[in-house]
């Protein structure tokens, strides 16, 4: 196991390995640590790119799950950085200045799931959602939205 995975194993609240298809690691961290971990991923994983940001509304648990999915070319493994945010105020600091590839994922997560990324100047409604939905101030991928 490489340096990056060792670091993540030490810092994680929870560290899971999935073998559904290829190598998959799920690393659960606190929302406050996201910038620190992102910077470390940039430093240790020069060949690691942020594949996507996947969001899930877990309405029964009152949380919105944020999954930063990294693909590591060195490890040939998918590293999922997971953060659970409170559903009533889903805010987190942006990582788009550290990892520029996060910009589109953050814009999408804001527009469709209503997660606010502090410090990302490019957040705007109607990035993907149609105008009429954006005007209502609702976020279509949330489970309580019945469009």
């Amino acid at each position, binding site marked *: 196991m490489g340096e990056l995975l060792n670091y993540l194993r030490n810092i994680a609240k929870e560290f899971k390995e*999935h073998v*559904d*298809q*290829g190598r*998959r690691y799920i690393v659960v961290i606190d929302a406050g640590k996201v910038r620190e971990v992102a910077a470390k991923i*940039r430093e240790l994983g*020069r*060949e*690691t*790119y*942020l*594949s*996507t940001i*996947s*969001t*899930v*509304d877990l309405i029964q648990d009152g949380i919105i799950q944020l*999954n930063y*999915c990294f*693909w590591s*070319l060195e490890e*040939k493994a*998918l590293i*999922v950085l997971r953060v659970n945010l409170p559903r009533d105020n889903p805010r987190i600091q942006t990582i788009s200045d550290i*990892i*520029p*590839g*996060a*910009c*589109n*994922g953050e*814009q*999408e997560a804001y527009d*469709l799931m209503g997660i606010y990324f502090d410090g990302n100047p490019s957040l705007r409604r*109607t*990035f*993907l*959602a*149609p105008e009429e939905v954006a005007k209502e101030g609702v976020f*279509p*991928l949330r489970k309580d*939205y019945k*469009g």
Partner: protein
Amino acid sequence: MSVIEIPVGPQHPALHEPIMLRVRLDGEEVVGVDVVTGYNHRGVEKLSESRSWVRNIYLFSRICGICNTVHQQAYVQGVEKLMGVEPPPRANYIRTIMMELERIHSHMIICAIMAEVIGFDSLFMLMMRDREVVMGLKELIAGNRVHADIHIFGGVKRDIDDKIRDTVLRKLERVEERIKYYRRVFEEDFTIRKRLVDAGVIKYHEAIEYSLVGPTLRGSGVKSDVRADDPYAAYAEIPFNVITRDEGDSWARMLVRLDEALESVYMVRYALEHLPGGPAVPKNIKRAAPPGEVFSRAEAPRGELFYHIISKGGQNPYRVKVRTPSFNNIVNGVFAYRGARLADVPVILTSFDPCISCTERVLVVDESRGVKRYVRLKELSRNQGW
């Protein structure tokens, strides 16, 4: 000199699908580009939550007209993991054949479009003519020319018999010969080189930092291919080379595609010649999945395709997140335009192979009254609401 802003798109002769680039110019030089998206958002992810696992196979393949088979693969292989279903080897080979045929025609269409964008229309016509042979092969195997819809949980819907195999092998010879010819044209033609070389250069580490994927990433020298790094279907058993080039410009990206298309021809040929025996078409299919989550990846013609599928049990998925390759390449790739000339903008965009999916809703216009309204697909299928 002050900076002026020119909108390119959403409807523009050089763009085949609706997206807008707000290009800021200082004289002829591009100093910045903003991408404006959202013209065709269909809400497929939301829609999938209210449909059954099986119906979603067809929904996800409709995300893209060109790379529909790979969308089905990414979805179906993920759900199969959740269900605990293993497709037989023959089915995996047939899926791989379909996906590689798709890659050939997808790469041919974007090279043809590139020819058209730079004003080389006869090349466009010729490539589209030869691409039609591959579309014919897709139809021969799957029964459908565009949407193959050959995937089903636990296998494929149609098997390949000896007659079909021989026809595909025979026609591939012609396809191979033509792709080799077009590769030479792209490599040697004076006009193509003039327009493509050094247009939109992306460096090795920039490509990784900005999360670019597929031929765009490999055109900058990064050896990353889901088929090789994270094998699915039959890719672990079929030999192939991951094509990379170091130049990082539009020309490199197009040559990567043409080399890949050639590689795909060899892969289809190998798969057909080594097709395993046994069944390919499942007798029964599962319709429910137990709770769980899966991260499914596949290499679409445009790059890494990502599905995050979550099940809470039952007939429908709880959430399916789809990340298509163009979402990264088009939105994050804007830095590549800086420093280029205005005339290079369509060339650079085309070199990313943009795919902006079209709309699921249908807009019906009542000409006589001038009334517009949206009609749901369900109403259309019942022939109501006109």
